[in-house]
């Protein structure tokens, strides 16, 4: 289990993370979302033990991570730009990893070689961007990590490879209870595989929840009334409201049953209730903290 309490981090005078606390259960896939410059990468680097926090505590299985090789043996971080030594071939990189990680699995290395079909004797730096990322996954998964931290992992991968990689991650989560933390801007990608999500904005969480709970707690409602009776609107917990002709488009917080009951008792002429996609939740939650989409004509 990963637990962060009151983590803060400052670069020079700029406060990047502001008293962040959250926990990720073992065997969970956690999605970290956020606006650009929200502090996602910094947070991931602190969890991976690359950066040291200014304040607060972080523990992976109650052990600190920073400069603690025992914990780092079991933690794997794939940065947004995967790194490899210049002039090293895949084979040489694998030997390097095998020397460092006690849990290196050579058998798996060969299996993934057949699956990915990349040339072992080619220099990693000469691969394309997407192929370099595949190499990073290949090496990372062979170290059999307990915690896998991914920063923008699916960037630059084609649909087939993306599915392969996701499948590999899911196998490890199911088989070995691997814990995964993913940051991404591609909300569709995250929506499929995460069970928890946190939305970061200006260095603090604006939301942190089980994804299914999140989705069942906010709905898109379209309603119209015959007699222009708008009293009901005051009774609902409305996040966002728009009027198109005589039809209202509302984003309402609350359980489906509660909203249904409330609205149906007012006999609407038109009534539709839809769950929101993660992308919509993100946009509306961000709008709530003043980071809204504005249609600016330039």
């Amino acid at each position, binding site marked *: 289990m990963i637990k962060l309490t009151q983590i803060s981090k400052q670069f020079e005078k700029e406060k990047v993370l502001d008293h962040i606390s959250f926990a990720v259960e073992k065997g969970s896939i956690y999605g970290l979302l956020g606006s650009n410059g929200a502090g996602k990468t910094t947070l991931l680097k602190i969890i991976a033990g690359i950066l040291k926090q200014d304040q607060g505590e972080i523990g992976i299985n109650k052990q600190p991570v920073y400069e603690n090789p025992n914990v780092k043996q079991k933690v794997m971080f794939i940065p947004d730009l995967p790194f490899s030594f210049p002039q090293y071939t895949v084979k040489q990189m694998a030997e390097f990893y095998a020397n460092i990680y006690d849990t290196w699995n050579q058998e798996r290395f060969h299996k993934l070689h057949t699956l990915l079909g990349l040339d072992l004797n080619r220099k990693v730096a000469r691969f394309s961007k997407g192929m370099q990322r595949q190499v990073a996954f290949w090496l990372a998964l062979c170290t059999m990590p307990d915690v896998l931290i991914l920063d923008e992992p699916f960037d630059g991968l084609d649909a087939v490879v993306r599915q392969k990689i996701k*499948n590999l991650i*899911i*196998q490890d989560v199911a088989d070995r209870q691997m814990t995964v933390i993913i940051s991404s801007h591609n909300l569709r990608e995250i929506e499929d595989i995460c069970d928890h999500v946190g939305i970061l904005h200006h260095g603090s969480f604006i939301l942190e929840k089980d994804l*299914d709970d999140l*989705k069942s707690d906010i709905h898109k409602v379209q309603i119209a009334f015959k007699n222009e009776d708008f009293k009901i609107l005051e009774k609902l917990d409305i996040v966002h409201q728009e009027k198109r002709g005589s039809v209202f488009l509302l984003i309402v917080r609350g359980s489906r049953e509660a909203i249904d009951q409330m609205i149906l008792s007012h006999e609407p002429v038109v009534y539709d209730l839809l769950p929101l*996609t993660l992308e919509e939740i993100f946009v509306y939650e961000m709008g709530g903290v003043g980071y809204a989409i504005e249609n600016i004509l330039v």
Partner: protein
Amino acid sequence: MFDLDLRSRKPIYEQLVDKFKELIINDVMQTDEKLPSVRILAQQLTVNPNTIQKAYRELETQGYIYSVKGKGSFVDGTAKKVSSHEVNKIRSDLEKRLAEAFFIGITKDEIYKIIELTYEQIGGGDKDD
């Protein structure tokens, strides 16, 4: 076994619950048949194992399946009854469609005919119905 609509707005675990219910109600999955293990289903569908676990738990609370520790989950034969929630939903859907039908000018008699025809097609339901 089945596919999920990953583009749908409906949460994945709800889709899973609905799919299994459908399979169980329509006798595609027989009583005491074993459900695929969480691990295998997660891998087949590329879905988070925790989501599948959650769906199985939901199916268990709703009485569609039972689980045996260390063996897996199985179809519960006693659960062929439909929940009252579902009945209410279908009823309100029907009301809505009927209102539309009347609006565009279908007569009451025509609707009675449709009802009788559908009833015959599915074999008449229970005798004392």
